[in-house]
Every structure is written in structure tokens, then in C-alpha cells.
């Protein structure tokens, strides 16, 4: 009796152990599944590199982003631009590479650090600068300002100021793509500071659950305002956020345009062809403070210099030079951009202020 009771208990225990083991295996498999998919996809993927011509076009784009913002910073100190001004300088290869991997019909949504994404999506320097100047000719009619660039026609969906709130929007745009079966993809840019807030998790969760064609691009520039990543996350590997939902992931060198493009291309393809989301973590760095108001005393000069050594524009220039592009070609591009930056400021200055009687416009249709 005692023995049979003992045996029964032992059997139960074994069964329990087997169950626990099965659960663990299941969990393990669940976690690994997207990793396996990622691996298989990656192995099966032939890499597509940017043509020389395309690379030069993207160099021009990156150079424009930088000079546009340097000019904006100048205008800010002249008080021609007000409010918050968050500069993207140092991160140019991220928006440029990722958006280059999309098609015109795809959608882009981002946070308040939005000038570069807007330009990459086809926004004009003129309308961008006029927006910063609060003028009628701006891409948001002067109503939005630096943080709220929009261009519906170019499918640039904003320009959002509440951290993380736009992540579910991207899932919604992906939801509509699937609903309409129109083959479009939604790309969502966000900072690494945004991966702790509820709406980020909810947006990711829904995108994975409903297999939505969305690419989430976390621009890990190591700081959320004055807070370094190690004080807001228990891991430095932001891409592991993807494991829980789960969805495919990759960590990308955000200073290298080619890699930026290549990893985004794979994720966009996965979204378009298989309707699956991806979380991409781009390692990058912002050279300026969080906004013009932030002196960035929380980091060392050395750290900044270290990152500047891998400046995305210089890196690309060096690569292209090695491929035989002559200095005069760069010079030509840079001169063209300089002229465009001067022109956009003139346009912004001359564009009229929104008329007082339009104050109530756009609250409703």
C-alpha cells in the first residue's frame, strides 16, 4: 500500500516533470521560432548591394539632411524657429538606408525627430524649412512645427510628439495594407527610449498576432533625453524586445548606409511577401543634445568623438572613394545641396504667415 502510494506519487512527479519539460521546450521553441525563421531567411537571402549611382543619390540625401539641420540650428539661434527643435545629425544613415529600401507607395511614421525621415520620404527642403519657420508654405501649413511634419501625398504619416504613441499607428497602417491587400508596407521609426512604454508593446503585440506588414526601426542612439540606455533597460540588446511577441529581429550598424539598406530590405521584403513584422535595432548616435535646449552634459566628449569617427557621411564617402568616385563628384553634389539649403531658407523667410482668420481651420472638416 505504502509502496504503491509511493510509486503513484513518483509517477505523478514524472508526469509533472515531463509536462514542465514539454512546456519549457514549447516555450523555447516559441522563442526560437522567429530566430530560426530569421536564420533560414537570411541564409536563403542573396544580398543586394546599392549601385554606385544609387549610393551617390543617397549621399546627396544624407548631405542634405545634415546641412538642412545645421541651417535650422542657425535659424533657431536667430529665433526664426521656436518651440522644440530635435536634430538628427549623426543618425542620417538610418532613415536614408531604411527608406531607400521601401517603395514610394509604402508608409513612414516617426517620432518628433522627424526632419530627415520627411526628406527621405520625398518631402522638400523648402516645405520642411517653411514648417520650421511656422509659415503657410510649410509641410504642415505652419501648424505643426518641427515635431509634426506631415505629407499625406508622399505617405509621410508624421511627426509625433508623445513617445511610443505612433507605434500602434504603424500597426494600424499595416492592418489596412493587409485589409486592402494592396502590397504596401508600414515603416515605423522610434527611439530606444520608446521601447519601455505600453503603447510600444501593445503595437508590437498586435502586429505579431495579426501578422501585419510592418517594420519597426528602433534608432538606438543610446540616450533618451539625458538618460543612457543602461539606466532604462535591463539589457543593452534592444532587439530582444522582439522575442516576446514574437517577431523576427536584427541588430544593425546604423552608421553604415549599405548595412542599413540591406537589413531594411530584408525586413521590407518579409513584410511585403509574407505579411510579417520585424523589429530592427539600429545602433546609432546623435551628435547634438536631445533638443536645442539640451547642452548634453551627461556624456563625455570622448564618447562623442568616438562616434564621430564613424560618421555615416564620411564612412560612405570613404567607401565610394575606394570604389573610384572622384572628389569632384562629391564637390558637385555638395555644392548643389548648399544651394538648395540657401534656397529653402529664402523660401521659408518669404512664405507668408498663416492668416489670423485661419486659426479655426482644420479642427474639423
Amino acid at each position, binding site marked *: 500500500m505504502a509502496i504503491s502510494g509511493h510509486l503513484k506519487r513518483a509517477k505523478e512527479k514524472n508526469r509533472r516533470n515531463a509536462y514542465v519539460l514539454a512546456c519549457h521546450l514549447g516555450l523555447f521553441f516559441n522563442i526560437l521560432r522567429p530566430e530560426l525563421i530569421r536564420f533560414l531567411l537570411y541564409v536563403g537571402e542573396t544580398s543586394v548591394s546599392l549601385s554606385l549611382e544609387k549610393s551617390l543619390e543617397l549621399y546627396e540625401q544624407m548631405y542634405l539632411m545634415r546641412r538642412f539641420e545645421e541651417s535650422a540650428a542657425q535659424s533657431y539661434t536667430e529665433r526664426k524657429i*521656436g518651440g*522644440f527643435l530635435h536634430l538628427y545629425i549623426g543618425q542620417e544613415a538610418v532613415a536614408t538606408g531604411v527608406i531607400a529600401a521601401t517603395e514610394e507607395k509604402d508608409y513612414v511614421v516617426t517620432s518628433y525627430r522627424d526632419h530627415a525621415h520627411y526628406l527621405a520620404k520625398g518631402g522638400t527642403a523648402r516645405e520642411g524649412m517653411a514648417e520650421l519657420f511656422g509659415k503657410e508654405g510649410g509641410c504642415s501649413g505652419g501648424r505643426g512645427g518641427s*515635431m509634426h511634419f506631415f505629407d499625406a501625398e508622399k505617405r509621410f504619416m508624421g511627426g509625433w*510628439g508623445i513617445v*511610443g504613441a505612433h507605434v500602434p499607428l504603424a500597426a494600424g497602417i499595416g492592418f489596412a495594407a493587409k485589409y486592402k491587400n494592396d502590397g504596401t508596407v508600414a515603416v515605423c521609426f522610434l527611439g530606444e*527610449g520608446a521601447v519601455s512604454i*505600453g503603447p510600444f508593446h501593445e503595437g508590437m503585440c498586435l502586429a505579431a498576432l495579426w501578422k501585419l506588414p510592418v517594420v519597426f526601426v528602433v534608432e538606438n542612439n543610446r540616450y533618451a533625453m539625458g538618460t543612457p540606455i543602461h539606466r*532604462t533597460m535591463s539589457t543593452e540588446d534592444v532587439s530582444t524586445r522582439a522575442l516576446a511577441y514574437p517577431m523576427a529581429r536584427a541588430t544593425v550598424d546604423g552608421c553604415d548606409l549599405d548595412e542599413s539598406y540591406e537589413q531594411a530590405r530584408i525586413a521590407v521584403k518579409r513584410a511585403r511577401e509574407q505579411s510579417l513584422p520585424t523589429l530592427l535595432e539600429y545602433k546609432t548616435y546623435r551628435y547634438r543634445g536631445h533638443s536645442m535646449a539640451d547642452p548634453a552634459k551627461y556624456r563625455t566628449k570622448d564618447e562623442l568623438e568616438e562616434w564621430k569617427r564613424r560618421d555615416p557621411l564620411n564612412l560612405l564617402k570613404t567607401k565610394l572613394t575606394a570604389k573610384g568616385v572622384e572628389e569632384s563628384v562629391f564637390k558637385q553634389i555638395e555644392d548643389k545641396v548648399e544651394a538648395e539649403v540657401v534656397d529653402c531658407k529664402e523660401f521659408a523667410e518669404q512664405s507668408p504667415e*498663416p492668416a489670423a482668420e485661419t*486659426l479655426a481651420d482644420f479642427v474639423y472638416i
Partner: protein
Amino acid sequence: MSMRQLSIREALNEALAEEMERDENVFLMGEEVGHYDGAYKVSRGLLDKFGEQRVVDTPIAENGFAGVGIGAAMVGLRPVIEFMTFNFSLIGIDQVINTAAKLRYMSAGQFKLPMVFRGPGGSVMQLGAQHSQCFESFYAHCPGLLVVLPSNSYDAKGLLKSAIRDNNPVVFIESEAMYGVRGDVPEETYTLELGKADIKREGADITIACWSKAVPWCLEAAEGLSELGVNAEVVDLMTIRPLDEETLHQSVKKTNRLLVVQESWPLASVGHWLAATVSESLFDFLDAPVKVISGQDYPYPYAKNLEALMRPDARKIVEVARSML
């Protein structure tokens, strides 16, 4: 009393430091409150003074850390939860309204919730539609909360100290645009009672009720009115829930006129609530219909010239007050 000139920012900082000194259960939690000294420098130096256990930097997770504050308060701590601005409190508002404001009632008084949700609010120079908003009416709507909005350094310090000592959840909204405004603050420590209005200027001809950033506008308007021979009484409500009806009603009974000035949108606002309740209960005393001046009923535009049209100002207040005489 010996006085010093302190900015509202410094006055709030002193209140926090003194209360943390006085009671080791008081702690400050929020984004950038520690190592960065606060996004608006209200918590400057507190990390050095009290250490990381009591000045806690959080990730960007407003709903999470608002809830953490509530949990900690349920078991005896006295959290001060900082929202970097009240625009972001909307991510945490579920915790404030569905949790903090309900706990005591739902548990038939088994719990008290001695905590403060504080941070800057209101419109600020060209920050645009998502960063220039007044949310006091959202919170004032909800029973179970106290809602406090100081308008100068003296009030800010005294009221924040009382808010920290209060055993109810207090929503404490500072004016983002006014942090740098200086005013007299005594060397000696003091507190100011919550739920009490303050008559900032005495007068007999019209009562102008206001709070937060509208107070300086109304005081300026009162000066303008006095040049026209009109003596306005300016009542700073300071706490908008619960309302100090006694002080306000006494004033209206004296002046027989009430004008309310608020920065917020008009619909379902505190200003219109005051107009309705005063009209109801003091109808026989009123010599003119109660009027309310609000911020324009639109989101905030970025463009400087449009933004300038959004806020009420002294000129507008004088104009409306005169029309009531």
C-alpha cells in the same frame, strides 16, 4: 518674517527637499528627475542629497510608474510622482482615475493613498498641439482626487508641502511657462491649507476668479480696470477640487458679479462649472450674468502669430469685465 526672492522652480524644490528631509517615506519618481536634475530642474540637487533610492529615474513608462507609486502608497510610502509634463500624464491617467481615485472608496476606507502626481502643464511658447494643453478639468472631474494649481512661489511651496502631507491622492499642476517667475518666500517653513482659495486683490465691483497662469493676467487686468475706476477682486482658487465655495461665494455676494478666466478649453471646464453653480446658488445676488473667458477652442498651432491668438490676455479681461458693469 524674513523674505527671499525665489522662482517657482526653486520654491517647489525647497518644498520637496524639506518634506523628504522631514519624512523618510517621501520619495520622488519620474523621468529625468535624478541624474538630469529634472527636465525643468525642479528636482535640482535632490539626487545628491537623498540618493538613488529616494530620487528615482524611470524609463518612459508613465502608466507603469504612476501605478508603482500607487502600489507603494498602498503599503505606507508617500510617493511624489513627476510627470515630465501633464501632456504625458494621459498615458498614466488610467492609474490616476481608475486606481488612485477609487481605492479608498471601493475598499470602504481600508486604504489611504498619500501621494502626489505633479508636473508642469499649460501652454508654452510654440511647443505645438501635443505639448501645449490644460488638463486640470480632466482631473477635477473625478471624485477622489484633490487638484491643486499654484500661481506663485509662495503658494507653490506651501501647497506642495501640504499636498505631500495629505493622505489623499493629489494632482498638482505647475505652470510650465511660469517656473522662472520669482516671488517672496519666507525663510521660515510653512504650509498652506489645501482646498482654500486666496484673495489676491481685494475689490468691491466685480469678482474675477482664476487659477494658475490666469492669475497674473487677471491681476494685470485689475490694474487696468482700476485706472478706469473699477475695483476688481481677484480670487485665486488654488485648489479646484474641492472648491472653496465659501470664499468665492462671499466675494460674489459682495461684488454681485463674477467673471471666470481660464487658460483651458471651454467645454466641460472648471470655469463653466463655476459659472453654472454660482448662477444657481447666488442668482439673487447677481447683477449681471456670470461670464467665462477661456482659451480658444482649438488645438495649439505652432506658428507664432497664430499661437498669440490662443490665450486670453489682460486686454480681453478688461473688455469683458467692463461689459458686465
